[in-house]
């Protein structure tokens, strides 16, 4: 009896036992589509977020407010925005990253992987730079950046690219969902068969060996196997179905806040605070 009690206690304390949700807590899945291309992925929450083009406009609204603040505070130098086409390409990339660099399934871009591995093509900048007035002070710069955010309800424009900006932090990222974990196990086996060992897809994308400036053959081989294994196991299809189930649950429980959020950013586009 004592031995049995010890076994129960050990089971209860096993790693992951307290974090893995029971299937009763998990929302039911809809249809699981076979996903072979990043362009197939759509999320229910997408309709509450601005498009990449609208995010570009929001950025201009925000920076205009910041620049007005610099002037009000006696800063005579001017801010210089970067190349507008480059900025728009950056915002396009940010929105695409919902699928291509997902918080759930990591990297998934079958179009670029064989050339760029996990890295971005030159046509998709990973950063944009705006030069700030050179004669500003630390305090004024901070104040004016805050002023720029105030024009967007306290957000930077780029934050509108991700569901995390939605009320209450957006839908849960269901990386512990049992259905998703099962397909991750299949993906791990597939990666092992290709000679790669990673605990999960994010770990493969964020491997420190990819930090160098050049894309190595090893990175391309790993990323290619990663994407192939995601297609073979339909990891993104399952992941998208699981995420959609959580998204729907979230939308039902936050509907009025979501509508107000979407109306708010629509107002920011027109300069309404």
């Amino acid at each position: 009896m004592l031995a049995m009690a010890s076994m129960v206690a050990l089971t209860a304390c096993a790693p992951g036992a307290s974090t893995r949700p029971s299937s009763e807590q998990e929302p039911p899945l809809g249809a699981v589509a076979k996903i072979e291309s990043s362009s197939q992925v759509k999320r229910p929450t997408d309709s509450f977020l601005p498009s990449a083009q609208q995010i570009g406009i929001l950025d201009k609204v925000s920076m205009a407010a910041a620049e007005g603040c610099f002037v009000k505070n006696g800063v005579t130098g001017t801010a210089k925005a970067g190349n507008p086409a480059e900025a728009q390409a950056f915002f396009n990339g940010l929105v695409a990253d919902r699928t291509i660099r997902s918080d759930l399934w990591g990297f998934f871009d079958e179009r670029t992987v064989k050339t760029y591995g996990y890295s971005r093509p030159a046509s998709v900048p990973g950063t944009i730079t705006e030069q700030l007035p050179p004669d500003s002070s630390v305090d004024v710069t901070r104040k004016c950046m805050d002023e720029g955010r105030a024009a967007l309800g306290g957000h930077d424009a780029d934050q509108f690219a991700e569901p995390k900006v939605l009320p209450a932090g957006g839908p849960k990222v269901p990386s512990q969902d049992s259905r998703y974990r099962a397909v991750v196990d299949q993906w791990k086996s597939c990666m092992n068969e290709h000679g790669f060992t990673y605990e999960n897809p994010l770990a493969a994308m964020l491997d420190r060996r990819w930090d160098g400036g050049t894309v190595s053959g090893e990175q391309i081989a790993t990323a290619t196997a990663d994407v192939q294994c995601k297609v073979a196991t339909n990891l993104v299809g399952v992941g998208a179905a699981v995420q959609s189930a959580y998204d729907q649950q979230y939308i039902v429980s936050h509907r009025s806040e979501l509508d107000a959020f979407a109306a708010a950013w629509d107002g920011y586009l027109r300069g309404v605070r």
Partner: protein
Amino acid sequence: MRKLKKTIGVAATAAALTLTGIASANAINRVDCTDNNYLWLSSAATTCWANAGTVNVKLFGVYGFSTGQNAGTIVSLHRRQVFSKNGVGNWDKNDTVTQLTIN
């Protein structure tokens, strides 16, 4: 950038970087540089940051960044840099970093 991250070995003792005045009560916080998911700001005393929010900082001698699984903004006296996930970049080490945002 791989070399940038290796500087963490001297981070605890380096004096070239000072962190002051965390003004915002947000969830963003400085963390040990133990995870590639974090935002890394490389300097003689590399710092790493995690969780969403905005924080006022004074970081001297930053010469590069690695964004991990984060998008956000780095503001200095002379520059506002918006970054996406899984990216790396250089920084002018004479330009003091004054504000960080992780989305």
